[in-house]
């Protein structure tokens, strides 16, 4: 496993690989969104080919000269980047702490990053906490419990679920073209239908009796009824949305809050999680529902990055490469994670 650590002089809140046109192609570019800085920004980085070199201790290490990420371009943003996604390979959407949502375009020819569109004041109290994109729609959720669904070319939101959640919403994901799922700070996973006439969720599932916050959620790429969510107690909770409301199983993976959780897109038996305790771990499971619900399951947990001394805020995986970003203003690029 080749690993490369770079100090970027910015606290990174979100890090994302730029999507490639095919799944086989290795992504060579990624974006970072910063926070808690005097001047926040979204930056595009290029990573070279990571070659493994055998050093004198006979361990394979990354050839740092060639594989250190290089800054390509950046764009100043007036607020902490709380949520960031590549809507497609040229458009990045970001939800900010100021309550605005920004749409930034990456010009591939001139290697520039420009703000193309922005929606102001969507979340006046607490700001936006996460964003998801399913073009031409963009959804933003906030600490005020509001969900806004916007269209890429329209200034006014298409649909708003105003204060539909009593508590701050922590993450949002598109399940399919008309359904969303969100997590909040009292441990609830909710499913919303965009077309629904009322402002209430279609399903509410509670992950624990003790109101432990859920921080992140991701959907299984092929078995779309499986949702995995990470909580403030370091547990990964798996839900089967075909069934009743209680979670399928709960696994203690980390010691502290799990900030981000991702299924691997092409090898969905892997889940990657990063946590406040500073580590990145990988779960390997076949996700057989029967086995899981009975408790006797074959889940392997391995540690990809040991506790690094400060919170690991975000991660993204593409192919065999993983990116993770910490509160110590550093970025890890790790190869051969699966």
């Amino acid at each position, binding site marked *: 496993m080749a690993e490369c650590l770079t*100090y970027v*002089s*910015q*606290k990174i809140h979100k890090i994302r690989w730029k999507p490639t046109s095919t799944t086989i192609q290795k992504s060579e570019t990624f974006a970072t969104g910063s926070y*808690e*800085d*005097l001047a926040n920004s979204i930056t595009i980085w290029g990573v070279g080919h990571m070659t493994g070199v055998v050093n004198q201790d006979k361990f394979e290490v990354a050839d740092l000269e060639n594989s250190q990420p290089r800054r390509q371009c950046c764009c100043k943003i007036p607020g*902490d980047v*709380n949520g960031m996604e590549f809507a497609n390979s040229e458009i990045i959407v970001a939800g900010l*702490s100021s309550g605005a949502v920004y749409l930034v375009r990456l010009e591939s020819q001139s290697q520039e990053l420009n703000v193309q569109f922005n929606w102001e004041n969507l979340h006046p*109290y*607490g*700001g936006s*906490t996460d964003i998801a994109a399913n073009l031409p729609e963009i959804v933003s959720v906030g*600490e*005020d*419990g509001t969900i806004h669904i916007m269209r890429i070319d329209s200034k006014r939101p298409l649909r708003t679920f105003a*204060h*539909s*959640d*009593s*508590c*701050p919403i*922590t993450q949002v994901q598109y399940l399919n073209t008309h359904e969303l799922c969100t997590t909040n*700070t*009292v441990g*609830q996973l909710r499913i919303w239908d965009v077309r629904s006439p009322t402002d*209430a*969720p279609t399903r*509410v599932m*509670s992950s*624990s*009796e*003790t*109101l432990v*916050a859920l921080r992140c959620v991701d959907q299984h790429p092929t078995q779309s009824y499986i949702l995995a969510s990470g909580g*403030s107690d370091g547990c990964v909770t798996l839900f089967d949305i075909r069934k009743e409301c209680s979670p399928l199983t709960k696994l203690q993976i980390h010691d*502290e*809050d799990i900030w981000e959780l991702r299924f691997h897109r092409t090898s969905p038996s892997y889940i990657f999680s990063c946590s*406040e305790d500073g580590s990145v771990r990988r779960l390997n499971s076949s996700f057989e529902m029967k086995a899981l619900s009975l408790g006797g399951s074959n889940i392997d947990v391995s540690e990809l990055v040991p506790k*690094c*001394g*400060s*919170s690991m805020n975000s991660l993204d995986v593409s192919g065999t490469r993983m990116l993770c970003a910490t*509160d*110590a*203003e*550093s970025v890890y690029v790790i190869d051969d994670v699966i």
Partner: protein
Amino acid sequence: MEEPDSDNANEIVVYDLLMEHHALHAHWQSGHSLMAFASTDTLASVDQPRDVSQHPIYLHEIHWNREMHSPVARKLVNESRLVFVGVQQQAEISGKPTKSQLLKFSRNYRSILQSCFMELRQKFEGSEEFDEELEKQMQLYSMMELIWSLCEILFIENSPDGTVLIQLVEWCKWHFPVADDYVRLCYNADDYGSPAQHPNYWPAIYTLALQGRTSEVREMLKLHPAFQTQEHDPFASIDELLRKMPIFSYHQSQSTNEFEMKWRHWHDECIKRFYGGDFDTMPNLKTLSRILCGDEGIIQELTELYGSWYQMLISYLYFKNPTISVSELHYHTKAFIDIFGGQSELGPLDRILLAAFKFDVSQVIRECCKHLGTWWLPTHLADLLHYCDLVPLSITESGTNVREHLIVEYTSSLSNFDSFWPVVVDYLSFCGSLSNHYLGLFVQRIPLSSEKKAAKVIRICEKRGLLKEVESICRQMKMKSMQHNRLGTALSWCIKANDSSFAMIIADKMLKEYARTGLFSNIDLIDYLGSSVLMSESLTFLGKYRDFHKLYAAEKFKDAGQLLLNLLMSRKAPLDFWPSLLMDCLPLLERNNLIYDVEETTGLLACLNVLDQKQKIFDSMTEIERENQEKKMKHLRLALTNNLAKAIVS
């Protein structure tokens, strides 16, 4: 007590139109900043009207010492934090880190300094215009690395007697590439034919020799056209001396005495050859041989080849007394300082290095604090030396521990910037006996800009047992949510903080809202409270009331009715909510099936009577509301009486 030094005071002029008639006032902010403003309080006399409306009123933020926020400084802060925490954790595990561990940590720090310097240099060389700020930073980092490496050799490595000079010679070689510059010039010269013709040829050889690089001197000498290996030739003679110069290496388990004997033997041979006239034919070689003999006069002649007194000191000692011990070094410093202009010519760097040579650790730290623009170096150096038992416990008048004092100063310089708060927390956690006290104070000043940040700060407080601060943060977040009318969020914070009294206030508020509007604002939270609902009576009541609504919606009327009765009979409901509760009975009473039997209906009538007697509930209502209320109560009484009749009959 030192007088404030007016020569060193920083001045800044604040421009503000209002200040023509008003005084300048200022208030301290956290970290190194002030807020200045024109104040209307003083100076405004009776004659001069306080007319400030014509000019806009400004707040001026003045700050200084912001260099810790440049990109390279941020890298330094974050990388060195890891090493610092590593040192403390090692100390916790094993009581005191071993010398080799301390050396490893010291080298980590140095490599961080070096990589920062390299990055700055890349930027400097890459930019088209001359950047004075970058150059200053480069100087600072290279100076810090120089100081650190010397301190590492003298204080941390603290090699056994006889070997320190070899390390110092290495130190000179790496940090003062004077000789390499000369050599490079010689080799690059195209217009001189061969390197030996270059005017810098002999200076290159002399400086190489002064840095103890005998094999390289031999290489250079071979380039001279007159070089031959015949016997009795001056070149051959000097080549032999250079080849045979003994170099002390403690890896070869040679004792100091053995080496000294060998060296003396070699030294005598050098002197013999010099006085024997071996080099009389070649004045340059004569100079070279005088260097090898450790001739004091040569020092004076070659002054311009040395950059500084410390390089001179090390070269001289290398050829005069190579087995000198660390404690004896400072005896020789005065002579060399005098050659370079004496004490008055000493710059800040000179003073720091001089203190190091004198083995005066506290003086080194003091000088670093005074002259370097950043607290980084003295803090981390003092911390490492603390574990060598070299840092004295107190130098400040208040008697605080040196290391603790420096850590607090360093963290103050960082606390200007919001993004460094986790770094500050880490450093304060390890600053000594008052760690928790400082942490408690700092944590209360972290701006809680979002729920996620509050969660992170709470996590850190919980890890360190700062429970009072956790409560305080929960309270702050709760009040913030209340201000924005986010009752559900506020309730979730109450639950987290186990604050049952405030939970009661929120539950009561929710109930009032329902009584007024007929709608619950936060059903989605209340329905899923789980066991937290037992935290406060009002909350429990609220939960049960919601259960009643759910039962009614599910058409389980009998169960709903029983629950409602329970709520009223058990007197758990707040009195001003009773009208609502009783009105909820109405639809149940109007159903065809009998929900309440005789006893139950009697109980309900009794409740109604109690309500009638409590006039104060109706006091807060308007005329119209009171009329409506009375009508409703009449209607209810009628329905209850009918129900009683039905119950008795059936």
